[in-house]
């Protein structure tokens, strides 16, 4: 696994954010002041840095890329393949795990290492998790302040586009390169859906209460989205290929988004990590959907 990190990094958070059922921030162990935290979740790593606890991080997952400081931190595997030996050798006093990592949790329990179970569902959960994590590591005030800042920034973006017409928008987070096949779209549930609605779009799949669906060509044509946002992250597509990939949509000229040249390819990991950078993602969605509101 270590031999291919450049190819296999990140992007994990999208599926996790989109697919993991959940409550929020399951805390195991009492609040104290951990100094050697291992975060197996890119979103919580970013939260720790934002609340000023970056210096306490002793290790991160193989999928962590942001902030750049994580590059110097030891990597301890991911959701499916945590490197338990390496993790234990780092002598953590708190490990942030996905709540679905039951085997790892059992091992950490046996080793008497405190845990913070990460679960995520929708946009509101991001700041809830952040506050819970801050309280858990004894940085409640800093976490509350950072969370409040995120909520204010999101509210400002929402307000900025509030009274504008809401285009019917299709949000795609994966498809076969060079073809309109196996199109994975965000539907009416989950943090990407919330983000789209906040940024002034009307989710064209909002009636389907699923986090993601495999969208057929017929469905794309019949739903007639006015805007198509296609997300690219990790190493999935080089920016110089964006134009060519945008042209693939010309096969469906009756789709209003295609006819009116409103198919947008957005590249960036902030769309798939439900952490503090969600503000950047919301801002980019809003600027793409309502450029006139930001002039």
């Amino acid at each position, binding site marked *: 696994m270590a031999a291919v990190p450049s190819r296999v990094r990140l992007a994990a958070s999208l599926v996790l954010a989109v697919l993991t059922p959940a409550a929020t921030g399951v805390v195991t162990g009492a609040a104290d002041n951990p100094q050697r935290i291992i975060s197996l979740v890119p979103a919580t790593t970013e939260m720790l840095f934002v609340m000023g606890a970056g210096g306490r991080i002793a290790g991160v997952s193989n999928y962590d890329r942001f902030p750049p400081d994580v590059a110097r931190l030891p990597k301890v595997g991911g959701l499916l393949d945590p490197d338990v030996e390496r993790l234990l050798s780092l002598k953590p006093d708190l490990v942030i795990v996905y709540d679905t990592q039951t085997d790892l949790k059992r091992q950490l329990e046996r080793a008497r290492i405190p845990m913070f179970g990460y679960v995520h569902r929708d946009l509101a959960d991001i700041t809830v998790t952040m506050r819970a994590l801050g309280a858990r590591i004894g940085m409640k005030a800093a976490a509350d302040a950072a969370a409040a800042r995120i909520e204010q920034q999101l509210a400002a973006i929402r307000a900025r586009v509030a009274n504008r017409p809401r285009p019917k928008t299709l949000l795609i987070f994966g498809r076969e390169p060079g073809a309109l096949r196996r199109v994975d779209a965000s539907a009416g549930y989950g943090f990407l859906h919330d983000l789209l609605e906040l940024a002034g779009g009307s989710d064209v799949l909002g009636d389907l209460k699923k986090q993601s669906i495999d969208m057929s060509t017929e469905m794309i044509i*019949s739903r007639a989205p006015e805007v198509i946002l296609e997300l690219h992250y990790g190493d999935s597509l080089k920016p110089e290929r964006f134009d060519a990939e945008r042209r693939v949509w010309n*096969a469906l000229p*009756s789709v209003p988004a295609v006819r009116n040249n409103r198919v947008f390819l957005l590249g960036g990991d902030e769309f798939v990590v439900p952490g503090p950078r969600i503000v950047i993602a919301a801002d980019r969605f809003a600027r793409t959907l309502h450029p006139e509101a930001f002039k």
Partner: protein
Amino acid sequence: MRERTEVLARTPVRQRLIWTVAGFGTLAFAACLFGPLVGSTRIHLSAVFDRSIPYADNVDAQIFFVARLPRVLAAALVGSALALSGVVFQALLRNPLASPDTLGVSAGAALGAMMAITFNFDFSLLGISAVPLASFAGSFGALLIVYGLSTARRRGTSTIVLLLGGVTVQALLSAVIAFVQYLADFTQTFRNVRWLMGSLDVASYAPIGAALVPMAIAWAGFATLPRVLDLISVGSESAAARGVNVERTERVALISASLATGAAVSLAGPVSFVGIVVPHLVRLIVGADHRLVLPGSALFGGAFLIGCDLVARTIIAPLELPVGIVTAIIGGPVFLWLLFRRA
């Protein structure tokens, strides 16, 4: 059963062939005609062919010509190719459980697709994207290995060795697939799994045109096989005694069936069960004569997959089921029913 067999045996082959082609041909024709008319969206045929509406604005025409017609054509081609390959592999390997997956060609195609998805292959050729191209290349690689195994037969090995060798290749490639999947991140794994469920939503004619090239070569090979497969499926020695060039025939059969399988899997992903259930269903209806089974399977395979895809895209509309799930769920019970009714 015996009475029916005697009736079949008394009827001239030419007459039975006419009935077989007419019967299954009507079914395939009806499926091709009906398939594009039905879907999750209601469309009006009058609007589809209304030239007064510019194509760019004609939603009905685009649903018909971009979303439905290519997938019906893809289903017809893939169903027919997998059914034909199933017939040929079963006769060649003298094993009723043989299928297009048995010798590893499907696994080769899957490996190519998994690599394209996992390592973000970023190229296209004549409008064909990286995943189907890599998939066909994978199937061709597997074909070369299997062909190498078949030439080993000249040194006196048996069909059972070819079968075991092929199954081993299949297992080996499956292990490599697992390794490539292990290297994938979560999103790629998600896409890999979806690819493995099969999809006929090809959304353009370019991949169908590309798949037609290897399929046409395969059909030319299949056309030489009906009589000799009957002899070979009884036994190589008796076939040779009757003047059949067994080695050459087996090689043509192997390459044709592998090419057809590779083209089908790279076009639609693995679609399970068609290659097993259709040949046996057709045999139950027309008997074991390959002069009837081959054309019957080609036509019925296409019709069967068009029907399964129709179910897949309408049963939970507006969402769709992967077609591979439907082929097994419909094909399995129908096959069991026919099998036990006849028994």
